[in-house]
């Protein structure tokens, strides 16, 4: 395996980890405020559909992003209403959202576009194009030189390879996702809002005694969750792909939840967890069976590894994963 292959695998890791990371941070806000959210998958799916649909109709990807965020926020509102206002079971509400999104997206897509539950392919302008940073070797340089991009890259030096493949050439959402990690850390651990939000997930009664509205805080957390899921879904449909295909999230919301537990509900650890899970996927896609000196690791094992790692963490072998204390419980004021 040469160095360029390694860089390409890492490049693929970044693309695969970005939707996981955004969904994971979304779950982090929600669960830190004491609202379990297994509806991440559904929200991403809904956002993926609406971002692609609106981008296809308006030809403007930013409108698509807004629509995606809006639709995800609507589902968040539903989750909030069911589990905060009406104190319903958060897990059931999450499952319902997943089913709702899975059915509704295909239904609306069929009635709007008659293409069998998918949106038309997006043309440029309706997609987040890769950003080529200055001095990076990209498709433009390849066309100018009249040669294949991979040939140009394999001749470049190591630093240029890393810069051109790994750092340059992603769509803007990848860079936004990176920023979100530090923003999340700052909001949660350096602001008053963050302190209260964490408190509401640990001991809502104490927050209430201090005269702060538990309901408003939890709704705020659920709304932030909706926005981040919206960006994640829009990235899938308009960044990585050029349109919506039914069930296109294919379990990424659940892997994000696994990453959240793996990261023990901390933002920077979430970044590493998502990158690790993304790396495992990238390796599984690039090398289907890995031969470790006579011992072949089957691709199935690589694909199952994120879940196995999460179970190991949950079982307490590698440190203990302690969820927010008030997680999953609706807050009832004592009378």
């Amino acid at each position, binding site marked *: 395996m040469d160095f360029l292959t390694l860089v390409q695998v890492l490049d693929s890791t970044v693309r695969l980890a970005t939707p996981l990371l955004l969904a994971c941070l979304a779950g982090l806000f929600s669960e830190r405020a004491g609202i379990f959210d297994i509806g991440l998958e559904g929200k991403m799916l809904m956002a993926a559909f609406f971002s692609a649909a609106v981008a296809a109709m308006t030809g403007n990807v930013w409108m698509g992003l807004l629509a995606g965020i809006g639709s995800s926020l609507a589902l968040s509102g539903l989750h909030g209403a069911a589990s905060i206002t009406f104190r319903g079971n958060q897990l059931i509400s999450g499952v319902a959202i997943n089913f709702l999104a899975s059915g509704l997206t295909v239904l609306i897509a069929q009635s709007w576009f008659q*293409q069998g539950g*998918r949106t038309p*392919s997006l043309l440029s302008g309706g997609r987040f194009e890769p950003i080529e940073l200055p001095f990076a070797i990209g498709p433009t340089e390849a066309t100018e030189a009249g040669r294949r991009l*991979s040939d140009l890259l394999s001749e470049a030096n190591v630093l240029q390879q890393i810069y051109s493949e790994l750092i340059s050439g992603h769509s803007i959402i990848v860079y936004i996702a990176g920023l979100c990690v530090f923003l999340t850390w700052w909001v949660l651990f350096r602001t008053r809002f963050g302190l209260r939000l964490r408190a509401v997930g640990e001991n809502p009664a104490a927050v209430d005694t201090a005269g702060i509205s538990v309901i408003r805080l939890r709704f705020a957390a659920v709304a932030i969750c909706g926005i981040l899921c919206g960006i994640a879904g829009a990235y899938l449909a308009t960044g990585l*792909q050029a349109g919506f295909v039914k069930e*296109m999230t294919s379990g990424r919301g659940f892997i994000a939840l696994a990453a959240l537990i793996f990261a023990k509900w901390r933002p920077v650890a979430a970044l590493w967890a998502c990158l690790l899970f993304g790396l495992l996927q990238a390796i599984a896609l690039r090398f289907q069976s890995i031969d470790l000196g006579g011992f072949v690791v089957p*691709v199935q094992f690589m*694909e199952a590894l994120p879940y196995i790692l999460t179970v190991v963490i949950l079982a307490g072998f590698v440190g203990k994963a302690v969820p927010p204390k008030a997680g999953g419980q609706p807050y009832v004021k004592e009378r």
Partner: protein
Amino acid sequence: MTLFKSLMGAAAAVSLTAGVAMADPAVIFDLGGKFDKSFNEAGYNGAERWAKETGGKYLEIELKSEAQREQALRRFAETGANPIITMGFAMSAPLAEVAGDYPDTTFVTIDGWVQAPNVHVIGFSEQEGSYLVGMLAAQASKTGTVGFIGGMDIPLIRRFACGYAEGAKAVNPDAVVIANMTGTTPTAWNDPVKGSELTKAQIAQGADVVYAAAGGTGVGVLQTAADEGILSIGVDSNQNHLHPGKVLTSMLKRVDVAVYDALKAGDSLQPAIQTLGLAEDGVGYALDDNNASLISDDMKASVEAAKAKIISGEVSVHNYTSDDSCPALSF
């Protein structure tokens, strides 16, 4: 979850029994859904053509989960639907279970394998069609490296890959064929993001023609191939129009004809084991306005010659499922 499923099942049962006329045929679409632009959609088109031509009606269901397979079969059989057409290999096991309980109903399995007196088995020689598109791929390739991206890793999909590799090597014995599978679970049929990543990985390894036999995942493969400026090959239905001028061809599997014929035969369908290959026009490659500029006369002539040889038996394409191995490709 279980309660929810049984509620869903009950709801499905109610909707199925409502307004059923006796002896309407039924079609059961697999998890990919009847608009997958590929296998199931071809079956749907065949059924619609029959409905339009004869004015007949058919019952249908799109399966949403594994648990629904047997339930849907029994429900249709009990309402008197005949024949009942099942799409996809995954219906084999439930069909084997159910067929014996309804000896008067004729079942049809497309791509499946069930041995029972009332099951009509329709299979395709995908390896023969894949052989032809493999030849086209190797002739269109400038790097000498061609790629294959499968959906779920099952013997049927390996049959596609094997025929493709043989075809490519028939043209260029030094051709390198990179074969990858998207996954090992049914979600592998609907993961365009993974399809894209696999395509990018194959391009990085030098592939400049990629053949996708992966259902909805193939949409991502074809998209990425078009974006990155290489050629792709569609599957099952004619997918040339998805990216005009950038899809080299499509391996056609005439599922529509199979479904149409079965529906037309209706009650009088005689259960048998049928394999549709090049000779029966059951498989082939797509040539239309969208890819006319990509396929030169030489390419067309060589493929037509090979087609004639396969039909006459002069060239035989290896069938992966006959011995679970492939001489031209290792998985």
